[in-house]
């Protein structure tokens, strides 16, 4: 199927073929001319008849910090799965920038193209040290042979220490990741995303299991990341969302589609949202 698709697209005569132009590094290839980094258009995903995503339309601007809220089963995690290539949509299109069709890329390809994902449950390599976790996540040639031959340069070492400082784990570099607290693991995973140097960060419930103080630090960190990168945060904690969304847009998902979108103040007064959240 893939071959047919490729053949068809290379038979078209009305365009300049990408493969004739030497491809630059994936993240440099990202084309955000129109100011938007992620396009989800009429995306539908169903599991055994249940529509987890139902004609979902979502656009994320370049450099934006977007919060996505919604009750359980609203399709937030499924949406993340679709963007990162874990789940293929039944219908609709998902584009990263103008050119990269995410529905036709594998998970590693999508990750290398510049989308980083933090899982809902903090997932780090528990038997590796914090340093090794960051090293493995580092932006590099991720094919087998270069990985086998890889030697850590001084520059890369500094980068790891720098990220460790950002996430407040510089004292714990030699520790096993498994021995960190829950909140520290969340941070380590965010740090691993930073090492990947993605253009778009998908952050699933970053403050689950954190103390208030840790939540404030996380909020600060996420806000500081937006700008040169786009950040999409999925979160249940309304107070936290209010804290980081500020004047940015908040999207409310409900039953697999967008229920409301706009600044936090408008969302809170939206009758549809109130009904879903406070029960009708």
């Amino acid at each position, binding site marked *: 199927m893939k071959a047919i698709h490729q053949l068809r697209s290379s038979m078209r005569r009305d365009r300049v073929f990408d493969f004739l132009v030497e491809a630059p590094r994936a993240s440099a290839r990202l084309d955000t001319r129109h100011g938007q980094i992620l396009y989800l258009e009429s995306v539908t995903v169903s599991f055994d008849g249940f529509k987890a995503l139902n004609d979902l339309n979502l656009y994320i601007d370049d450099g934006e910090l977007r919060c996505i809220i919604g009750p359980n089963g609203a399709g937030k995690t499924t949406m993340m799965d679709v963007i990162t290539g874990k789940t293929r949509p039944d219908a609709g299109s998902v584009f990263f920038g103008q050119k990269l069709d995410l529905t036709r890329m594998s*998970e590693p390809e999508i990750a290398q193209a510049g989308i980083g994902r933090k899982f809902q449950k903090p997932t780090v390599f528990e038997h590796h040290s914090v340093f090794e976790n960051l090293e493995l996540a580092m932006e590099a040639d991720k094919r087998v042979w270069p990985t086998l031959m890889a030697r850590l340069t001084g520059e890369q070492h500094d980068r790891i220490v720098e990220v460790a400082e950002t996430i407040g784990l510089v004292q714990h570099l030699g520790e096993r990741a498994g021995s960190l607290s829950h909140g520290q693991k969340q941070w380590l995973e965010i740090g691993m995303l930073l090492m990947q140097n993605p253009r778009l960060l998908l952050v699933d419930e970053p403050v689950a299991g954190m103390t208030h103080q840790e939540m404030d630090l996380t909020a600060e960190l996420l806000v500081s990341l937006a700008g040169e990168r786009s950040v999409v945060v999925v979160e249940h904690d309304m107070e936290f969302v209010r804290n980081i969304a500020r004047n940015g847009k908040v999207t409310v998902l409900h039953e697999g589609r967008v229920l409301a979108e706009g600044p936090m103040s408008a969302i809170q007064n939206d009758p549809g949202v109130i009904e879903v959240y406070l029960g009708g």
Partner: protein
Amino acid sequence: MRERGLPGSVLWSDRGGMILLGMLVIAAVVIPICNLVVPQSSVFHVSTYTVTLLGKYLAFALLAVSLDLVWGYCGILSLGHGAFFALGGYAMGMYLMRQIGDRGVYGNPELPDFMVFLNWEQLPWYWYGFDMFWFAMLMVILVPGVLAGVFGWFAFRSRVTGVYLSIITQALTFALMLAFFRNEMGFGGNNGLTDFKDLLGFDLQADSTRVALFVASVVALALGYLACRLVVCSKMGRLVMAIRDAEDRARFLGYRVEHYKLWIFTFAAILAGIAGALYVPQVGIINPGEFSPLNSIELVLWVAIGGRGTLYGAVVGALVVNFAKTYFTGALPEVWLFALGGLFVLVTMYLPRGIVGLFSVVRVRSRQAEATP
């Protein structure tokens, strides 16, 4: 931060491995002397029988190291790893068969005895080239490597993992066993290949050849161990362990997990093939029984008992279990399987990290002391 990844530190950080390699070097020097120089009347004389037995154990140890690489480090529990060992053995066996020439029972210069017995007119095409040593050695590497590559490509690409993968590897070795039992396959049926005369012109029964094979086994084990150690100490090794612990995380970091698994699996299969090629001339026979699923399971037990995920643990396990096997099957044959089962239960319950886990408790403590600045 400790300097890592450099060839020197591959060994310095691995005390168990250093002890192991030291012992191998000593064995490679002392045992040949004790066999060839020391007179038979002396207490220090080592009989040729013992030398061959040790050589066989070392071939098993190399096989165990290769399984530890896939299971202990990559988390792929292959229950058919013995198939690659047997294929390497068959490639060696085919060379040894062709070396017999017209000294067989039927005196046919071209065909091995079993083909004459089956009234075959000519050599099947896949036996061509096996009269050349270099070709046979190439096949020792290629046949297990290609099989593992093709099998692994399909299995890992389809994301077959865990117990399902174990079952299909088991099916693979079982299917090969049934195939090799058939006379029509042209590999000697259930008798396999045997009655070998010489290797590269040296008489296989001679003491000096036996000692040379023992030394070759020592060298192969040492090099195989070092190669595995280089892999696990590289960034690739760290990644492979990361895949074992959290496959999805590795995939979403941009690594093609299936490629890594495939390379490790194929590399281990090649090592297993080499082990098989060393095993066959020392025991003097290769038959389809080597493909038996039970052999592969026993191999997993060696690694589990020795301690997986350490490489040298696999060597210890292979040696200890096989010494015990030789002793028990000689002294109390009916007890052996119970002893093996009992040993496995004991190790799983009280030594989850195997025999070498006993020692590494001390090492972890010293490493923690090292890590705190």
